[in-house]
């Protein structure tokens, strides 16, 4: 698949959409998985889908700053209520998957979404 949208990911893996429905048609440029915010700030790229277990509002600040396509909370993590509020304001898609990060990254990779390679 050459052109993957956030919506394609939601559809393929049955993700729960919590916020940012308006932006699901955007193209996903790649993926990044990390729970350290400075790491994500340093290495994610614009349009990336970000997998994390962090649920606090600062993930929205990071996604906004790096213009990410969306955030997937893995392991069935529930976003904090103020995270949802901030994500609605900033129009950042927050999606939830029951899968753990490793499993979901594998599936995304098979779907044609890759990282940027070595740093």
């Amino acid at each position, binding site marked *: 698949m050459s052109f993957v949208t956030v919506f394609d990911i939601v559809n393929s893996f049955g993700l729960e959409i919590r916020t940012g429905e308006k932006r699901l048609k955007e193209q996903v440029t790649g993926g990044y998985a990390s729970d350290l915010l400075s790491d994500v700030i340093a290495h994610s790229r614009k349009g990336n889908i970000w997998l994390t277990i962090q649920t606090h509002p*600062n993930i929205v600040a990071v996604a906004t700053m790096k213009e990410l396509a969306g955030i997937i909370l893995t392991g069935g993590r529930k976003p904090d209520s103020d995270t949802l509020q901030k994500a609605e304001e900033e129009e950042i898609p927050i999606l939830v998957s029951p899968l753990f990060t490793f499993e979901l990254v594998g599936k995304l990779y098979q779907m044609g979404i890759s990282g940027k390679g070595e740093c």
Partner: protein
Amino acid sequence: MAEPEENICFHEMFHIEGGNFTHAGAISSRVKKILKEAGFPGKIIRRTSIAAFEAEMNVICYANQGNLSLFITPNFLKVVVKDEGIGIPDVNLAMREGYSTADETIRELGFGAGMGLSNIKKNTDEMILTSESGQGTHLEFIIYLDKQNEG
């Protein structure tokens, strides 16, 4: 380091409240918006806002309060961040990637990985960090508006 006192096209100062994670990233988002509206190239905006985000987070994580000033001049962007707080006892050690004094609460939020200052260093053209233990920290960085930053 280049001084912005002459030829300042724009200057704005923002207050940062230490310990308040609720609005973390708000100041750097505003910096990014200002630079976007001013029409700077993407790379300049990206580098400045990443460095500003890390600097803002440092004040929130470690200081009582601080302020971040953005200066725009014809040749460079300069950001000055001053805070009042515990300061950094050993600046050289703090610059080392992976070194952190963050407590468990900060680490649980995904901060305190010891990457903040090195992220600032990597994304700026000049960086000066000075601190007085128990007083506070003074950080300045510059991003030049030349061709290498236009991509």
